[in-house]
């Protein structure tokens, strides 16, 4: 067995593409994109969205695929290979992935529960009360140091049991490795995801009132294009949607064979992800249109995003369907499950790859350690107060953690590294050649991210997230980011295996990517 195969390698190009698209396509494509689009100009939003895809999303995918492919290591190895002092940035990204994995699985667990609830409409006539009351058993929000512990409450078995199932699925797949686990799972999940989403879309567009919803989603308000917030929303949506800047795509690309068309792979991943989002938007808004008509209200009044859309508004819509309520409801939650699993697998893989690449651990040992640590922590989210922790930590890791990680990555690679050598490297391997615009895109995105972060911080000071107390935001939000930062430095300082030291530390890049002259080994 070659060294590459020992480490793991995709069995086929289609396997990698399905896995990369699967990583990018997640819950956010279904419950965030449609709302963001509709709230930011409807059809007109697609202009900045597509501009962002081609000027930021795909260029960053090309960059991360290239670095992972060339260096053949996960994020910490990639950054350490640039310069040993940058290794902590790779760990920062990896620990963000660890944090996200920890709570993302809980939401997939909710989806499993709701899959069963759908067949009996267990949520009743008031899905909101059901979600927060009977199911999550939500207590009071954390507000002071003294009630932080009590607001967590006790373990909620209704959440913990499906959570264990989700962990079992992820663990079993990852245990089987890249080719027999990740690749095979995505070859099953992704087609089933597309089919289940299409069922929802077909059901949705054939409902009375669907056209009102689709009008709301697609009607262009071109006046919004002069609003910088809309452009920032578009770039933000693309950035968060494509699984970039938090270690995943380095790991996935590191399993590619030497002869790989990097550019086409990046285009397929970006276009595949956004195509899926658009179809999701059609499904979501056709059903919201139906609901609005049934309730005699405007589409704007029922339009929402996130947990509320999936676990409150959609159950309300399912209640009102003219027939096959259980089946359609079940298929909707199956869609969430497949979208969630394909993403959770990738997030966990990023962490497992990092641990087993650097330390003297086999993949199984790395997976076991990760699963026990993250699994136990995820039980914290399966408590009465878990939703508050999830909400704040999710906000902090996405709106701050990933943005900071992106800034660090793009400043280093965009401004201190020989990007022209990366362009030469990818063009040598790819049928599509990228022009010099690609370098401008990387540098430009780094500046954009700095602007986004600055505006975010300014906004936060005047109006803290969701009205949570500064104590709660500080302990859970800032606390999570602090732990991630401290952890990054600790892990970077730890001694690596002889193989890692030899491959990464002892042979740093000379500020550029060299071409591989022999692509057949």
């Amino acid at each position, binding site marked *: 067995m070659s060294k590459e195969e020992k480490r793991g390698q995709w069995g086929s190009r289609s396997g990698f593409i399905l896995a990369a698209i699967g990583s990018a396509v997640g819950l956010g494509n279904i419950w965030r994109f449609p709302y963001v689009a509709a709230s930011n100009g*409807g*059809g007109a939003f697609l202009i900045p969205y*597509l501009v962002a895809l081609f000027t930021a999303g795909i260029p960053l995918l090309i960059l991360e695929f290239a670095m992972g492919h060339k260096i053949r290591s996960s994020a910490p190895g990639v950054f350490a290979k640039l310069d040993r002092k940058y290794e902590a940035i790779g760990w920062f990204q990896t620990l963000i992935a660890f944090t996200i994995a920890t709570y993302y699985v809980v939401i997939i667990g909710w989806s499993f529960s709701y899959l069963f609830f759908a067949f009996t409409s267990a949520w009743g006539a008031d899905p909101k009360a059901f979600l927060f009351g009977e199911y999550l058993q939500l207590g009071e929000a954390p507000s002071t140091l003294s009630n932080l512990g009590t607001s967590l409450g006790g373990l909620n078995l209704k959440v913990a049991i499906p959570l264990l199932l989700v962990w079992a699925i992820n663990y079993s797949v990852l245990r089987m490795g890249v080719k027999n686990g990740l690749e095979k799972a995505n070859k099953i999940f992704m087609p089933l995801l597309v089919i289940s989403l299409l069922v929802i879309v077909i059901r949705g567009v054939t409902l009375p009132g669907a056209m009102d919803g689709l009008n709301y989603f*697609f*009607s262009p308000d071109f006046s919004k294009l002069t609003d910088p917030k809309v452009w920032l929303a578009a770039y933000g949506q693309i950035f968060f949607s494509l699984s970039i800047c938090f270690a995943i795509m380095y790991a996935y690309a590191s399993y590619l064979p030497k002869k790989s068309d990097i550019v*086409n792979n990046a*285009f*397929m991943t970006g*276009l*595949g992800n956004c195509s899926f989002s658009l179809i999701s938007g059609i499904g979501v808004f056709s059903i919201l249109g139906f609901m609005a008509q049934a309730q005699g209200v405007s589409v704007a009044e029922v339009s929402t995003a996130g947990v509320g859309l999936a676990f409150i508004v959609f159950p309300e819509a399912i209640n009102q369907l003219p027939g096959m309520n259980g089946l359609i409801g079940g298929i909707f939650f199956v869609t969430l499950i497949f979208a969630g699993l394909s993403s959770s697998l990738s997030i966990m893989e990023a962490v497992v790859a990092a641990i087993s690449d650097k330390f003297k651990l086999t993949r199984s040992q790395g997976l076991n350690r990760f699963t026990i640590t993250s699994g136990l922590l995820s039980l914290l989210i399966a408590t009465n107060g878990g939703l508050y922790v999830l909400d704040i930590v999710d906000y902090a890791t996405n709106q701050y953690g990933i943005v900071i990680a992106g800034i660090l990555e793009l400043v280093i690679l965009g401004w201190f590294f020989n990007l022209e050598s990366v362009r030469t490297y990818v063009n040598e391997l790819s049928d599509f050649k990228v022009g010099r615009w690609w370098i401008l895109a990387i540098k430009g995105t780094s500046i954009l991210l700095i602007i986004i972060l600055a505006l975010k911080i300014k906004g936060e000071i005047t109006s803290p997230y969701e009205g949570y107390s500064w104590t709660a935001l500080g302990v859970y939000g800032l606390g999570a980011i602090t732990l991630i930062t401290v952890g990054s430095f600790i892990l970077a300082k730890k001694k690596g295996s002889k193989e890692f030291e030899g491959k990464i530390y002892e042979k740093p890049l000379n500020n550029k990517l060299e071409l591989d002259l022999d692509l057949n080994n």
Partner: protein
Amino acid sequence: MSTGATIVAVCSLTLLWGGFAICLRIAMKDENK
């Protein structure tokens, strides 16, 4: 659906799915080489 919404829907679906299909076709040609 309004005319504007229909145009946006058709154009965006064509661009995204069409673009994806073209990339896929190129990838499959490469695999068969």
